[in-house]
């Protein structure tokens, strides 16, 4: 038996997601073009980053995304534990936030900023722009977790839940491309 095809979440959120993905895609292309013009600067800049922190950030976002995904499925089916999963996801994602802040502190202490060179311009803008998205996502998770804490109701707002979750996964998706581009490819 096939279920009718169904888009999780709100159309408005999907329009936003498409727009955001387009912005990030254009920024990635810009990054690649700039890198082609000046590979030495980019290689030197990359050497200053901390791949360990980057890796840990990635893992924290993936795990959080997993928790959000299972929370959404559970919520739709009326299972318990949605709130717990969302709180856990929020907690896990804090590893990303703290890691990023630590790395900003390190780099800033070493004298790097938005205007240092083209690599750091992209590094700071891309990661900070993404960082802000994560912070917004964390706010969304917080709101959803508080909402889900309330006892089971018939009129569960699966629209809000799925919309928030998809936004969060979009943030994760962007990072999955951003992380290797910035930290790994040498």
């Amino acid at each position: 038996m096939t279920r009718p095809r169904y888009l999780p979440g709100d159309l408005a959120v999907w329009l936003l997601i498409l727009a955001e993905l387009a912005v990030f895609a254009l920024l990635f292309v810009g990054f690649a073009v700039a890198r082609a013009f000046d590979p030495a600067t980019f290689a030197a800049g990359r050497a200053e980053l901390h791949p360990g922190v980057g890796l840990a950030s990635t893992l924290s976002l993936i795990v959080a995304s997993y928790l959000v995904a299972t929370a959404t499925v559970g919520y739709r089916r009326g299972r318990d534990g949605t709130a717990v999963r969302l709180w856990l996801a929020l907690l896990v994602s804090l590893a990303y936030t703290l890691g990023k802040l630590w790395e900003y502190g390190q780099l800033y202490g070493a004298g790097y900023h938005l205007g240092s060179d083209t690599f750091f311009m992209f590094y700071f803008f891309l990661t900070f722009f993404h960082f802000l998205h994560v912070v917004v996502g964390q706010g969304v998770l917080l709101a959803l977790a508080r909402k889900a804490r309330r006892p089971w109701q018939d009129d569960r707002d699966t629209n809000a839940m799925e919309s928030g979750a998809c936004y969060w996964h979009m943030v994760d998706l962007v990072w999955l491309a951003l992380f290797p581009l910035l930290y790994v490819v040498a």
Partner: protein
Amino acid sequence: MILTLMILIVCTALPVLLANAGLQGLLPLVLAMILIKAWLVVDRFMELRHAPRHWRWAVQAWAPMVVLAVIVAGGW
């Protein structure tokens, strides 16, 4: 879902570990990993596997387009 998570973790860690081990020429692997991870996130986590096809492909197309554009634009 838990399987998806496992694959995502492996795909993320693998290039980093290999790079740390001093291997060169990892770019194709890194890009392939991006594609696999994006596929899983979109289809499983976002649950677009069951979404109307045009939505599924619109979002699924993103990662390949980025990878392709990066390859072309960067002349890699």
